[in-house]
């Protein structure tokens, strides 16, 4: 069923969700289409940008500087944003952020709000909070519009509907648009979405956006889109609400541009987004348009805790999605299987911060440690190191299964005793050899995960050490 929420999003544990995703061949086609294109375009954009490595280093340095001086830049931003006429609100966690936004919507007498794509909005659970408050929510990003019609959550931080093929989107639009699109080519479908959304843009009481950057020295917020929907979300309604994580701060507009050069190339392989907009305060006397009120909700939600622990480097993340586009695991299972707001390698680091390690300890282990995510990360986040840090915590907090702990503990105990280890490995090799014929072993007790899908080479008989000591050198 193409228009039912993907089942893997509903299953309780990661392994089940991943299994459902793996069995869905249409999902795999959708993932391959988008990630292959993203990978190719990013490589071309980086190849055409000889100073990319220097830009990465600068990007890393900008973010590290802000993180090290976060208090200073938050105060500077609040002062300058307030001076511009915006009102700054502080939310310690997701519940507080939701409450502030819903209150602001109610104070504005809002019946309908438009929203431009914001992963932070997803992180704080804004879609459900608006629904509970009885406020109509209209997603204006084309991909968000698709998943709103499907009743789903984003499966990618840049392309939220990347798990849906064109063909599935055509089905959704036929059922969800009145009248339906005139044809099912991309052009006709986009025109249909534009027609449906245009009415909503003009009728909304409040527009809610995220921010790609918070500019400390001007108090402005910056959004980038390729559709212009953020501008139509933030300008016509009476009230504009920005929700942003506190890690989005940069010292100045020039710093935002330094990071934009990295962000756009890493995300879509473009040089620049179609729309890059700075919002600074509400409508002023003489302005042709703009909101009467502008509110900026600064959200912590675990970020200040990361400042002081081993996940601090993750605060550099500029949400480009390159890590997931280049992740072999993401490319097998897609985003919903991860089960958190953020999927892929960056999500596997952030989800335990947001949802707790006990609920998400599978994610840091769902990684082959191949290092490709860190290789493409525009701000050089050592993602495998951070994932390993979660594994370490999971081990120390006794969250790993008892059998695993006991088995590994015994192995390590033996490995610290070389003579015993020689004896054990010699016996092990002989036992394994007895289980196979010719060159292969077809099934091995306790290694069913391996032999379910592949054969195991049969060991040749004696260990290297036995042969070496036996003088066959």
């Amino acid at each position, binding site marked *: 069923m193409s228009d039912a929420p993907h089942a893997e999003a509903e299953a309780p544990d990661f*392994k089940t969700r*991943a*299994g459902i995703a*793996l069995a869905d061949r249409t999902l795999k086609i959708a993932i391959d289409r988008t990630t292959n294109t993203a990978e190719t375009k990013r490589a071309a954009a980086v190849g055409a940008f000889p100073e990319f490595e220097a830009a990465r280093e600068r990007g890393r340095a900008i973010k590290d500087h802000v993180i090290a001086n976060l208090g200073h830049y938050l105060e500077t931003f609040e002062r300058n944003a307030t001076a511009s006429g915006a009102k700054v609100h502080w939310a310690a966690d997701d519940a507080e952020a939701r409450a502030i936004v819903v209150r602001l919507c109610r104070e504005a007498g809002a019946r309908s709000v438009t929203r431009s794509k914001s992963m932070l909005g997803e992180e704080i659970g804004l879609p459900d909070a608006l629904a509970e408050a009885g406020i109509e929510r209209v997603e204006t990003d084309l991909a968000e519009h698709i998943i709103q019609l499907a009743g789903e959550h984003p499966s990618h931080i840049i392309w939220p509907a990347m798990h849906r093929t064109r063909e599935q989107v055509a089905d959704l639009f036929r059922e969800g648009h009145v009248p339906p699109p005139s044809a099912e080519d991309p052009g006709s479908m986009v025109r249909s979405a534009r027609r449906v959304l245009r009415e909503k843009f003009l009728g909304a009481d409040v527009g809610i956006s995220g921010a790609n950057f918070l500019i400390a020295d001007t108090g402005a917020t910056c959004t980038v889109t390729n559709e212009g929907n953020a501008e139509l979300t933030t300008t016509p309604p009476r009230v504009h609400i920005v929700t942003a994580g506190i890690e989005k701060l940069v010292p100045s507009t020039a710093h935002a541009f330094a990071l934009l050069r990295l962000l756009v190339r890493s995300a879509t392989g473009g040089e620049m987004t179609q729309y890059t907009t700075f919002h600074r305060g509400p409508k002023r006397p003489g302005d042709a348009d703009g909101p009467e009120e502008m509110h900026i909700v600064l959200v912590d939600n675990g970020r200040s805790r990361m400042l002081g622990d081993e996940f601090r480097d993750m605060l550099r993340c500029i949400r480009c999605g390159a890590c997931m586009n280049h992740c*072999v*695991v993401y490319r*097998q*299972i897609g985003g919903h299987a991860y089960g958190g707001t953020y999927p892929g390698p960056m999500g596997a680091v952030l989800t335990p911060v947001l949802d707790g390690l006990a609920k998400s300890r599978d994610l840091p*282990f*769902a*990684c*082959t*440690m*191949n*290092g*490709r995510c860190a*290789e493409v990360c525009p701000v050089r986040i050592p993602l495998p190191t951070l994932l390993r840090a*979660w*594994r*370490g915590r*999971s*081990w*120390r907090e006794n969250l*790993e299964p008892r059998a*695993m*702990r006991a088995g*590994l*503990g015994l*192995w*390590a105990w033996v*490995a*610290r005793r*070389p003579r015993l*280890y020689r004896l054990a*490995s010699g016996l*092990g*090799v002989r036992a394994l050899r007895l289980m196979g014929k*010719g*060159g*292969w072993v077809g099934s091995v007790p306790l*290694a*069913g*995960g*391996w032999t*379910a*899908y*592949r*054969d*195991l*080479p*049969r*060991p*040749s*008989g004696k*260990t*290297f*050490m036995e*042969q*070496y000591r036996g003088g*066959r050198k």
Partner: protein
Amino acid sequence: MTQASGPRVALFVTCLVDAMRPRIGFAAIRVLEEAGCVVEVPEAQTCCGQPAFNSGDDADTKALARQVISVFDGYDHVVVPSGSCAGTIAHGYPELLADDPVWGPRAKALAGKTREILSFLVDVMGYRPEGRSLPASATYHDSCSGLREMGVKAQPRALLAGIDGLEMRPLEGAEVCCGFGGTFCVKYPAISNGIVGEKAAAIEATGADLLLAGDLGCLMNMAGKLHREGSKVRCFHTVEVVAGMADGPAIGEAE
């Protein structure tokens, strides 16, 4: 350079080569000696501890790291026929023992002289295979840790280019992980299978006779998948080919 005056090189065999394919260890010794090294195989070695390291079991990893450091730090070089195990010694140990006033500096010192074998042969010893021939076509997979942690990229290709008759065919996605990932393939076998399935298809598409790579874990994963799928591609560690030992059984062929 004569053998007696060459650098004293300790071979870190790796637990997987020790148990599953000793030929790789003997191939390593052969080429290292040809390159002029004095090769020793310390008997007190077992495993670098990577299974514990990647499982988050830092205490056991540290204990194994201290053991490896004690056994190996008296040599000029430590050479490993695996980018992955070399990476654990060269990057994992210093990271894990960074705050240890005694073992931290020793870990760093060992890291500085630990190399993956093919890069060691080319970058340190200037070795080139001579008089080796292998009339076959082959494709090469870049194992992730070797590529990204140990700088192994051009060296194996340069060595393979020196083998008469060996035709190298490029592998689409050669730098993409094969899905082995150590404990990953046991924890998440179905995801791992999806990844290695794509890798096996890319290998088949080259039409090459042989698949070569520098890490036995990855090789066992790819060879096991290729065999399960009925492929005729034969798999060897690159050092076996460089040592002229590809006339013997491939991975999964009876001796």
